[in-house]
């Protein structure tokens, strides 16, 4: 499988700026990238403390510090 690139991580962040929160699947669909790769990118961003997980009856990712509900 391809490796996570900085471009991909950047794309993920760009996308997350446009939504309150999202599922990995939605991010992958929006970016048109392979889901397994996006999963990896999101894991990397989580470890870098750039994104965080929230729980609203189900879990989502969001940009760290972004408002939860529109």
């Amino acid at each position, binding site marked *: 499988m391809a490796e996570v690139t900085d471009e991909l991580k950047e794309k993920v962040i760009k996308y997350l700026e446009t939504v309150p929160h999202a599922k990995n699947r939605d991010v992958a669909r929006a970016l048109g990238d392979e889901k397994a790769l996006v999963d990896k990118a999101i894991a990397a961003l989580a470890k870098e403390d750039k994104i965080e997980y929230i729980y*609203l009856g189900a879990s989502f990712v969001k940009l760290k510090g972004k408002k*939860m*509900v*529109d």
Partner: protein
Amino acid sequence: MGRTDIGPPDFHEMLPDVIKKNYGTWKYHEIPRPGVLKHVAESGDTVYTVRAGSPRLVSVDFIRDICDIADKHCDGHLRFTSRYNIEFLTPNEKNVDLIIADLKKLGLPVGGTSPGISNIVHTQGWIHCHSAATDASGLVKAIMDEVYEHFVETKLPNHVRIAVGCCINMCGAVHCSDIAVVGVHTKPPRPDHDRVVAQCEIPTTIQSCPTGAIRRHPDQSMKSVVVKEDLCMYCGNCFTVCPAMPLADAEGDGVAIYVGGKVPNARKPPMFSRMVIPFLPNRPPRWPEVVQAVKKIVDIYAANAKPYERVGEWIERIGWEAFFRRTEIPFTEQHIDDFTHAVETYRTTTQFKW
């Protein structure tokens, strides 16, 4: 940042020597007395297990206490069971009495083996959960005090698995227990409109309701929701996704009792528990009505079931109408299913008892 994703310790490091040596080659077991198991391996080796009850919600000092016993008699090893009991394993028969004596000093009962009543699988309740319609730990304590004899003795037709779920999320195998006590709300959620705006996604909230009871607030400017109360069955699903829709209520909350579930494939296939008492009030600290109801069901089962029959198997043999007659529990509208697969529960035969 520290290490991540290291996973749990390898269980091999945790196994006592006699287990490591005879792993996968056990031959048979006996239950010499309630709370004590004797497993014999192909090699001829034997391991004794002493099982002790635990409140599950324990302090670190409690853990240290039981570690002391394990250090003294079990070479520093112990395990817990899938029902929160503590098991002390030893190859030495003579240690059994010593372990039991030390447990006695701690006030911990030895027992929980079949056919009796083991520990109650339960959940957080008022100790930690926002969703709770009752308390779990208190109910467990009150019920176990009452059926204590069945923990320390093994005189029932088969084991009776009791579970407590503090809301209908039923964390645990509540839906397949011989007797299950489930916290229930009986009043609809009360949307706090100001907080709904701030904390909830309206579409998600509306979508969360299994019965479609949640609608947009007619006043568009409110950006909130209303609940059609006649459609609400108090499941709390909306509250899970929208904290601004509380349903907890001192009068409206209480517990329901379900019976007849089982998990094993032994004899009859696994069965769901079924509702026999729709509502009993929350009466902390000791929930007397609930405790008495559980006791009564256990007693009638003990007196009437055949050996090896689980509660559900016994009821299936005598028929639910006989169960209600013998326990004198009133049968009501609430007992009749009206959810998705309701029709599968209606009686399609003239076979029944009077």
